[in-house]
């Protein structure tokens, strides 16, 4: 249902063009959960924002196609795009504290999301519809209470009038999920939705997202830098590095038998309680400066433990190593 081809997002800065997303290919089937993992600054969030065409200034999408149900989102007009946002593709953000508007009651904000896409239609058009505003609000209120209950907010009728600061982090995230669900989207973009929460709440939120995926058949793109969460939660995993996907495939393949040196490094650097007093593994070096990255060669070359001389020069694309599993590495050429 979603297919991204050769997506390129560039930030024009004083130091030159920063290639935040550099030729990204991705596809997602209906009802699947795709995990997008990578270090900070690897372009995960930008990929999500590109799908909604909300890349912040001075960034812009310079190349590529984003096919959503067969239609290219990059060719839509701004008003068509507004129709899609929230209704067909909804997004959940990382920090629930700041995602809700602090000056409105939570329930009203969920109700507002119903209103934006006219989910509950007025009974009549024009002035008569305006007169029936109260009935419409009543229906919307009932729908909001239902939504709040669905995402696990207890006493929804009471919580409807609470302000965001009266909610705990987990409750805020539930409210945000309720907003995202209000229009019954086909695709849910989740930008590190559990990073700001503690572990028990994290598990509850993941359960909730899983339930939504199963019950509504909503596809989810789940951005995270927590490989354990991704392994637990996703059907497929795509590992990003320097704006590119370096490895993607079914979760058991990518986590079970990683191919790309970067994925191997990531998996090695997870601390384990079973290990005894061992120095924590870290991938040497830092994420490369995206502004001065040479267009040729593998971007991971300088940090790679298995690098060979040819890595500097080689032109790489994703190589299919087994059914549905792709790797961008010279070793598999």
């Amino acid at each position, binding site marked *: 249902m979603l297919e991204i081809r050769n997506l390129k997002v560039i930030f024009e800065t004083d130091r030159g063009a920063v290639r935040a997303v550099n030729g990204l290919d991705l596809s997602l089937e209906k009802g699947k959960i795709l995990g997008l993992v990578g270090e900070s600054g690897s372009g995960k969030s930008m990929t999500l924002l590109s799908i*909604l065409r*909300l890349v912040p*200034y001075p960034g812009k999408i310079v190349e590529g196609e984003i096919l959503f149900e067969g239609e290219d989102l990059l060719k839509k007009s701004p008003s068509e795009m*507004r*129709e*899609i*946002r*929230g*209704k067909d593709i*909804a*997004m959940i*953000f*990382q*920090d629930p504290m*700041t*995602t*809700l*508007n*602090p*000056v*409105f*009651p939570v329930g009203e904000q969920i109700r*507002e*999301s119903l209103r*934006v*896409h006219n989910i509950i239609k007025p009974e009549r058009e024009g002035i008569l519809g305006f007169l029936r505003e109260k009935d419409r*609000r*009543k229906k919307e*209120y*009932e729908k909001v*209470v*239902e939504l709040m*209950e669905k995402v696990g907010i207890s006493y*929804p*009728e009471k919580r*409807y*009038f609470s302000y965001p600061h009266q909610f705990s982090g987990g409750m805020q995230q539930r409210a*945000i999920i309720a*907003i995202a669900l209000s229009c019954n989207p086909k695709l849910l*973009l989740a930008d590190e939705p559990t990073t700001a929460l503690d572990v028990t709440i994290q598990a509850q939120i993941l359960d909730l997202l899983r339930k939504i995926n199963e019950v509504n058949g909503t596809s989810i793109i789940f951005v995270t830098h927590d490989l354990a969460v991704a392994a637990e939660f996703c059907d497929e995993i795509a590992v990003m590095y320097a704006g590119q996907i370096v490895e993607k495939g079914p979760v058991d393949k990518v986590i079970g038998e990683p191919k790309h040196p970067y994925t191997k490094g990531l998996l090695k650097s997870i601390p384990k309680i079973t290990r005894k007093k061992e120095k924590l593994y870290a991938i040497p070096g830092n994420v490369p400066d995206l502004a001065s990255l040479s267009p040729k060669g593998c971007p991971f070359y300088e940090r790679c433990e298995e690098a060979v001389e040819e890595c500097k020069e080689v032109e790489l694309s994703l190589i299919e190593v087994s059914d549905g599993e792709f790797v961008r590495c010279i070793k598999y050429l």
Partner: protein
Amino acid sequence: MTIKNGIVPAKYYEVSYKKSNAMTNLLNLLGKIKKRSTALLGMLIIIVYILMAIFAPFISPYSVKYSDLAARLKPPVWSGGTWAHPLGTDQVGRDLLTQIIYGSRISILVGFLTVLISAFIGTFLGAIAGYYRGTVDTVISRFADFLLSFPFLIFAVGVMAVLGPGFWNLILALTFKSWVEFFRLVRGEVLEEKNKEYVEAAQALGRSNGAIIVSEILPNIFQSIFVLATLRMGYMIIMEASLSYLGLGVPPDIPTWGSLINSGRNHIFDAYWISTLPGIALVILVLSINLFGEGLRDILDPRLKVEGSE
């Protein structure tokens, strides 16, 4: 109350929906003001002034046109005058109390109107400049900087000299520059709010830019605008008095505090009250507005909220 399938009957909704309307918010605010004595005092004095301005014809002892040449330069009661003219009379025998009461009308009206209009213009332009940035922002901001480079009084004197005296001209002259303050405040606040995630979330929800400005960002910065408005009001009242003092305000037949202070200038040594008393009336009003505004800022601005005060 029975809950069926977790859905609360609509009746409950109506009841609780009323709970958070404008009236209760106002009562809440009044409750907080009551705890701050200076803000409360300021508010009460402002209310007295407003009532005085509205009911001027009923409470002033004489008509505004009345003058008794036989009773010129009578001192106020505490300086040996009579209760016929409690605050004394001026050099043409007009009752000073009457003049001061009528003078409050212009001061309050000018203060209120200029602030209202400039807040409206400033907020509108500030929101656009702060939200859209780019060329619009540059053009409006440079124009605002240009206006800011003039001292206010000199600028207002210049505009009034071109336009000539008159109530609306006065409003125009004062508004022409004072919107800049609101513009700068709102632009800055919008710039800050714009980068918050709730704006991004609203975009991701498919809301239009106009809707985001009006119903997401502005409610968040309304309190700052409100506080600036109260503080600017005192300043506008002083500006009006200054212009009237210079003879550049409203036509001379309408009494204002500024023109009263001016008319007593020649008698400042033998009849101090003509200049002093309107001046005191002015000081008390401006002081009250500032006290009220400052109290409001403390109450409304979450950044200044004292730990544990809520």
